[in-house]
């Protein structure tokens, strides 16, 4: 009889701790029990500490008794263009496999989960450093002979198991392995512990890959308000909730001059203005933290079952700034000026663990929220409104010259966010850009100026130490940094 010319090769890309090794064991067991010569290998080592790692298997699709004592020579490493089944437990790992040439149009079936586990370098960025998932899906369309892509993590969670069971099922269901469903299931059962849950996950993955049931729907893209009308409606609601009708009216007055002009500019100003006016002070934080909807959300996030009480403890560490922010303007201003002069702005923060779910804790935090009517007289309010007016003035002035330039000035509001030092840093960056690129530009050409502002803004978001922005502006950006913390 004719023997196969080559083994079936399977490369598995996984992250440490995801059970890739267990899946390799299942495959090996199923292949061996089916009478096929097979070999599996891996590079566990230190990569198993949360890093990207791979497992590689070769299965020779002819029973041992047909080989008359001959043994196939199986390779320990995959080679590009020579992989039959590429399995990835996460989307960017599928991308990495393609990048390394392990997915080829003539040969490779790609089986991968579409969920993302963000790498540290993606999530530590100050703005949005996430890799665009669509690129991986698009690349798979060009590079794979066939692909089975769906969110296997959510399916695993539904089945009460881990992702490797779903992946194994998808592999078996896609028909690319020379292994029967029964052989695969027997291998899972033989491995013992957790077999029932694994079998559920296996069945779900199998059915989807075999098109016996539809893949779970991909999560809807996040709702983003882009249309001016929608932004205005959201903004007015937000500010009524944040303060009152009058404050919402102030918003509408402020945005009015922009409504007749460039639509993109108007939308951007409307969005940033709403966020800025609803700045996060302790009154706002206290308000948000003591809403019934918040406790419901916490229950959901921590996966508490009905009848399981959840104790919520908040980590608050207010200091001079927070205290000053609710003082009358003249007092707050003096206090902050004194603290800044002495370098003691962060010296008196009081770390508190408040049990917000208890009656006492709740009342303590809620009482701060009750200060809402006082807010317009507070120091922080005055400071914020002053800067908002200044920003709006700069945007309006730029709009008279060029809508593109005004857009870049408006976008600078993005830099101001967060609390404490983060907020101080953002504000310092904002002011530095305003000073060096908006008010005192080194070019008269509005386009060149717009580009320079964009570059500076991107630099401000490149690193938290202000190094990139300092280099871009040609002078260091200084903000008050905490001196005594512990």
């Amino acid at each position, binding site marked *: 009889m004719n023997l196969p010319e080559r083994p079936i090769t399977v490369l598995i890309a996984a*992250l440490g701790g995801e059970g890739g090794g267990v899946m390799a064991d299942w495959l090996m067991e199923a292949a061996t029990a089916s009478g096929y010569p*097979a*070999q599996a*290998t891996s*590079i*566990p*080592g*230190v990569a198993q*500490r*949360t*890093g990207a790692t791979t497992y590689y298997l070769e299965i020779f699709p002819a029973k041992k008794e047909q080989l008359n004592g001959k*043994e*196939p020579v*199986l*390779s*320990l*490493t995959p*080679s*590009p*263009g*020579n992989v039959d089944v590429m399995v990835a437990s996460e989307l*960017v790992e599928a991308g990495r496999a393609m990048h390394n*040439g392990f*997915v*080829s149009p003539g040969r490779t079936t790609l089986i991968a989960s579409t969920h993302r586990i963000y*790498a*540290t*370098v*993606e*999530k530590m960025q*100050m703005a*949005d450093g*996430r*890799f665009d998932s669509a690129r991986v899906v698009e690349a798979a369309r*060009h590079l794979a002979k066939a692909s089975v892509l769906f969110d296997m993590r959510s399916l695993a969670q539904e089945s009460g198991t881990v992702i490797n069971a779903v992946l194994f099922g998808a592999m078996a269901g896609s028909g690319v392995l020379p292994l029967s469903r029964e052989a695969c299931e027997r291998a899972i059962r033989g491995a013992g512990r957790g077999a029932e849950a694994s079998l559920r996950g296996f069945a779900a993955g199998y059915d989807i890959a075999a098109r016996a049931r539809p893949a779970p729907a991909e999560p809807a893209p996040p709702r983003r*308000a882009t249309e001016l009308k929608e932004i205005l409606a*959201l903004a007015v609601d937000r500010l009524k909730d944040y303060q009152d009708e009058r404050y919402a009216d102030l918003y509408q007055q402020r945005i009015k001059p922009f409504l007749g002009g460039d639509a993109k500019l108007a939308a951007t100003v409307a969005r940033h203005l709403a*966020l800025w006016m609803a700045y996060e002070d302790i009154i706002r934080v206290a308000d*948000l*933290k003591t809403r019934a909807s918040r406790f419901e959300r916490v229950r959901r996030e*921590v*996966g*508490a079952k009905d009848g399981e*009480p*959840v*104790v919520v*403890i*908040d*980590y*608050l*560490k207010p200091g001079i700034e927070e205290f000053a922010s609710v003082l009358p303007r003249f007092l707050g201003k003096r206090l902050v000026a004194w603290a800044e002069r002495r370098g003691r702005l962060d010296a008196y923060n009081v770390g508190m663990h408040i049990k*917000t779910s208890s009656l006492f804790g709740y009342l303590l935090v809620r009482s701060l929220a009750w200060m809402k009517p006082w807010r317009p007289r507070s120091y922080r309010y005055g400071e914020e409104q002053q800067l908002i007016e200044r920003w709006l003035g700069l945007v309006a002035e730029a709009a008279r010259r060029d809508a593109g330039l005004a857009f870049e000035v408006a976008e600078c509001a*993005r830099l101001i966010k*967060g*609390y404490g*030092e983060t907020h101080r840093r953002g504000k310092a960056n904002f002011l530095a850009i305003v000073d060096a690129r908006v008010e005192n530009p080194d070019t008269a050409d509005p386009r060149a100026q717009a580009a320079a502002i964009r570059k500076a803004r991107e630099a401000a978001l490149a690193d*938290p130490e202000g190094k990139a922005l300092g280099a871009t502006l040609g002078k260091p950006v200084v903000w008050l*940094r905490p001196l005594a*913390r*512990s």
Partner: protein
Amino acid sequence: MERSFKQEVAKLKLGEGETFHGEGILAVTKALLQSGVAYVGGYQGAPVSHMMDVLNDARDILDELGIHVESNASEAGAAAMLGASINYPMRGAVTFKSTVGTNVASDALSNLASAGVLGGALIVLGEDYGEGSSIIQERSHAFAMKSQIWLLDPRPNLRKIVEMVEQGFELSEASSTPVMLELRIRACHVQGSFKTKRNQAPRLSKRTLIENPAFDPGRICLPPATYAQEKHKIDVRWPAAVRFIRERKLNETFAGDMRELGILCQGGLYNAVIRALQQLGFADAFGASRVPIYCMNVTYPLIPEEITEFCRDKASVLVVEEGQPAYIEEAVLAMLRRHEVDDVKVHGKDLLPMAGEYTGEVVFKGIARYLNHASAIEPIITLKKKAAELLGGLPQRPPGFCVGCPERPVFSAMKVLESEVGKIHMSADIGCHLFSTLPPFDLGNTVLGYGLGLASNSAIQPMFGRRTITMMGDGGFWHNGLTSGIANTVFNKNDGILVIMKNGYSSATGTQELPSSPQHSAHKAPDMSMERALEGIGVGWVKTVDNYKVGAVAKTLKEAMTTDYKGLKVIIADGECQLERQRKLRPLVAKQLSEGKRTVRVKYGVDEDTCTGDHSCIRLSGCPTLTIKDNPDPLRTDPVATVIDGCVGCGLCGENAHAAVLCPSFYRAEVIQNPSLWDRLVSKIL
């Protein structure tokens, strides 16, 4: 231990003619028993960590045979243990990783090789090279050459590996020379099968004791014996080894019809060579190749007769030798010249890269070029180019601290301290804590070797106006840090700050036990304390901190930076390895829950409506479960922080939020499972 082999070790009992299925490392252990080994030991390190785990889990089986097992204090200790085979006809085997392990072991290895052995001495080396490696990239070959230790590099096939272990002992005895068996990462973990033999009880063992001590002045490494030993190596041991290797046909020649060509390869690369030939249409799936192959299962010493015989009358040969320098290729060139086989063109590093792992792709490209099939490489280049165009640069995903790792908060504290006092020079050490050098921490300026953190700081500290910091793990402490670092610093009256990560295990290698582990197997001594050792050495400033209290850790670090105390300041950063902790906790919690007992599950979270998406918290942590998600606010674009499933509730998020005064978005949730009546009542109030 991270991985238990308790069930798998049953395979070590297989008898004559049975079939073993399993991993390379376990197969090697079985081969040791089949060879009648009398003592085994080693030091953990990937890719042979599991061999130590197997040996420890197989103690009962080994005891039955009278075999002595030891978890040596270091690779040097392991190599020195092989000294038992110098005077007594006992077979011994030790294992450690190469090259760092071999570096540490060198002193003992040189002396062992000079004295020569009576009983077979085998060193199982995990060649930690290429993808998956965690160390500097060097090869073991140099050690074999400089000390004259034979180097085996078997075809990565369990049957061959087992055979080479058995033959290795015989070779060692036939030539009075220790033997190294080199296994690449993937070979250590390869799953396969082989026919087993019966285990042999050693002739001398814990059950059949040595009666009389042997004394042979010729075996002592002291002049004048050392001069005689060197001569003996060349005049007697080398020819004996060459004779043995030839007679036993340890190297393999595979004939092929394209006789004008030939490939000489290291045994470990044979499968890659065959696969490349298959892909190019020069071999079938079973290894029948049209190009003749000389497969060196022994890469040191080389056998001139075999090599010249193989190369004679060929137009050209290709040497497939991984790594650099190209010892084998150069030796082949010299050998052919010396034996006047001058017409053969020798290829090697001209067609294959000088440095880096010989993966399937690399070997394929080299052999394609050798066989004038360079066009076969084109599709690979095109494919990768297209993928790069479609994908652009992908985010790297190096290994990092586990969820809830107790070492992470120490570096968070150091970051907090840095924002206060400026950048700090940190001398790093080997261990999981070396992940501090990666984002988001980027802490650690040098790493010089296991346990050598403090020693590597010796000439740094005096040159700095303010103090620098040194890291060391408890593994490194016991390996040699106690002497090379701590004793040295005290002795030389140096100033300095040493942070010892006391996580209780050799965690990076698979959480093996250390002398100061919190609990011990029955066969290890309990309660060897680092604190008492420090006291004994005379370190006058020792503080212990709870790692998760970031603020307190930062404060203690600052105190060490600023105190007037001259001399070594040691901070013991105490926090049990979370992998081990969870391994112990999980069954306990499951039991509690099933018994209906009140159990509190802790998880941290982020309020999505107060998080503004700056991600400062992530830059201070890097925990896999502290990540980001789409901003639920339609007016905002930057993703918000979130804590996903898998959070073990270590509390670092909250501590960081406090210590660095980050933001008020973090909360701690305590889910009360099987609540008491009181819990329910209290929860009803709100």
